[in-house]
């Protein structure tokens, strides 16, 4: 039985009204409600609106980095003067995409970051012109199920794409490379500079066997988790030489990095205000995506260079004489990259870790045991450690069993009080680093906004 469907104009009007009402009632930025209402009243609305965007739809998905990459591509499109519909400040599920399309009056192109589990459904509805597949890491097993399950669903999604569409994929991720392999029209990207890699897989590496024959993969270089220059010595399956690649990576701690890239359009040099190798991947992915959209390399570089971190992604907030750097950490791969980036700083580290276990964080907090917090304990780099959030005591146990002296732990579940405790521990001019999970980041943001230190979330551009 088909669900009843309201005519397009009526459905859109009702949805917009719901969004305005929600904002008036102070229920947030209205980035999801209109879309939710719209798709309930008219399930085919997303497909219809997507079809009406003249230059097509771009989808960016992966466990980590999709928000930042979408913002970078957005910057390049803005610089080129394109009128863009995007969900860069909103939800990355179906309802967020529908809301962005609803507000897309006159947009020439639509750009969406998409939750990895929602990608198949959104791709089916929006019939994208470009799909950028970034990475698949172990993340929230209670919500997404096993990694293999997502791999299979992505494979089906790619098989269902228009053959003329372009799939941009991370060649350094063996699972993502396999997913893209079936598509006739692909662009690969990756990191080539071996000086920034490691020679050993970290603990939380997921795809470490050859996807063709099951033999453990050989890594010439490991960048993040199971990403790197991989090959199978048994059957010969190997990473391709990426079409767009970072040939030189100079990481400058939390201040950013300089990159040299080789692209089919020639070499590019790039300064980024985003730190860490995860952002190297984001920048290379964004460059590959922007090039696939026909933007010129000369325009892409400067646009990316201007982009600063999104809230919570290595963003720095001054509080009095101190700086607070917030590094969202919602899964082992992301947390490990944050730790690596923090260790590039040459100062004593004052750290606040905020662990929540709500639906958007994943209710299973096991993942913290897969993070290599132990690196922070080497050379006594941790000057102070404060633990907050709903599951602060779980995090305290993680550090206690890593070997951190329990007497030096400060456990303060309330986010607001934990921030104060951590700032006190910093002293007058120490820098504080905060690693929150997703909903803890939103709480922290609201605490900081309440103190007038950062704008409210829905004002994010």
């Amino acid at each position, binding site marked *: 039985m088909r669900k009843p469907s309201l005519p397009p104009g009526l459905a859109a009007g009702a949805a917009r009204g719901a969004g305005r009402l929600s904002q008036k009632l102070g229920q947030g930025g209205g980035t999801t409600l209109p879309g939710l209402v719209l798709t309930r009243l008219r399930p085919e609305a997303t497909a219809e609106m997507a079809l009406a965007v003249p230059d097509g739809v771009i989808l960016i998905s992966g466990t980590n980095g999709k928000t930042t990459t979408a913002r970078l591509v957005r910057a390049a499109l803005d610089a080129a003067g394109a009128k863009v519909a995007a969900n860069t400040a909103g939800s990355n599920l179906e309802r967020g995409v529908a809301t962005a399309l609803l507000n897309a009056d006159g947009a020439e192109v639509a750009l969406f970051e998409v939750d990895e589990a929602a990608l198949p459904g959104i791709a089916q509805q929006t019939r994208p012109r470009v799909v950028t597949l970034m990475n698949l890491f172990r993340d929230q097993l209670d919500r997404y199920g096993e990694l293999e399950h997502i791999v299979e669903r992505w494979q089906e999604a790619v098989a269902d794409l228009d053959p003329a569409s372009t799939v941009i994929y991370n060649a350094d991720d063996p699972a993502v490379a396999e997913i893209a392999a079936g598509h006739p029209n692909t662009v690969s990207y990756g990191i080539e500079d071996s000086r920034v890699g490691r020679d050993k897989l970290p603990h939380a590496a997921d795809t470490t066997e050859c996807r063709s024959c099951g033999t453990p993969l050989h890594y010439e270089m490991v960048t993040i988790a199971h990403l790197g220059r991989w090959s199978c010595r048994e059957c010969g399956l190997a990473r391709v030489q990426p079409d767009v690649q970072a040939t030189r990576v100079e990481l400058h701690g939390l201040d950013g990095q300089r990159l040299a890239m080789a692209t089919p359009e020639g070499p590019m040099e790039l300064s980024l205000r985003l730190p860490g190798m995860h952002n190297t991947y984001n920048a290379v992915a964004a460059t590959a995506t922007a090039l696939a959209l026909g933007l010129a390399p000369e325009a892409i570089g400067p646009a990316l260079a201007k982009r600063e971190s999104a809230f919570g992604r290595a963003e720095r907030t001054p509080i009095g004489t101190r700086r607070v750097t917030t590094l969202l950490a919602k899964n082992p791969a992301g947390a490990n990259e944050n730790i690596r980036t923090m260790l590039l700083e040459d100062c004593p580290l004052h750290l606040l870790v905020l662990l929540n276990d709500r639906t958007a964080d994943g*209710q*299973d907090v*096991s993942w913290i*045991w*897969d993070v290599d917090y132990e690196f922070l304990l080497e050379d006594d780099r941790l000057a102070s450690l404060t633990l907050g959030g709903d599951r602060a005591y779980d995090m*305290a146990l*993680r550090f206690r069993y890593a070997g951190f002296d329990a007497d030096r732990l400060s*456990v303060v579940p309330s986010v607001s009080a934990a921030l104060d405790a951590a700032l006190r521990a910093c002293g007058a001019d120490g820098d504080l680093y905060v690693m929150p999970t997703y909903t803890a980041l939103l709480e922290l943001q609201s605490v900081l906004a309440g103190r007038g230190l950062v704008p409210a979330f829905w004002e994010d551009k």
Partner: protein
Amino acid sequence: MSAGPSAVRLCHLYPEHMNIYADRGNIAVFRRRLEWRGLKLEVAEVGLGDSIPADCHLYYLGGGQDRDQALVAENLARKAGPLRQAAEDGAVVLGVCGGYQLLGHSYTASDGRRMPGTGLLDLETAAGNSRLIGDVVLDVTLMGQTSEVVGYENHAGRTHLGGGCTPLGRLRRGHGNNGDDGCEGAVAGRLVGTYVHGPLLPKNPWLADALLGWALDHAGGPAGLEPLDDSIEHAAHAVARTRAGRKR
């Protein structure tokens, strides 16, 4: 490998393939709780290509993705002899999630394929058509002492016990072995299997010490473990119990 009576030898089975629910947390708990008492943990890691030593005091088998578990099942069934021997001699065996399933007779996947188990525990597992996910609270009685165990479960398997083992505990929250009979895990002598991860031991230090006590006894080490300051453990335990009561 030499271990005096002050060291417990742990055999970590398939750490590369069976490590999905933070199993290294359980190993860290064994290590630290021995260290804090002036004792030592020695770990032997056994992978697909290694044979299983028979002279360890404690054997640990964690959870894995379906694909990895299938790979490990055949391998382990083939070479479980020394593990069975060690268990008969009084070694402790702990299996969590997929590791628990492999301690039973077999695992029947949703497509009907049958994965062999080791048969160390008298139980059978078959895949159900949904995953049993969420917080778990159960009462566990070991050696005449009843305590509460908290954690998280996420498994498709429905496990039914035979007469050769008893449930590890009675559920107060969660789905447990099969979602039907109110039981969680299995125990037979010093063999323990459970679906509870999170990981299992950090928030349940009492259970960790019970297992370590057995392992030390088997190692000929000191009887009885000095109490530790477990205030953080107890606080985390209490939070997990509260979260288990939340609306979802």
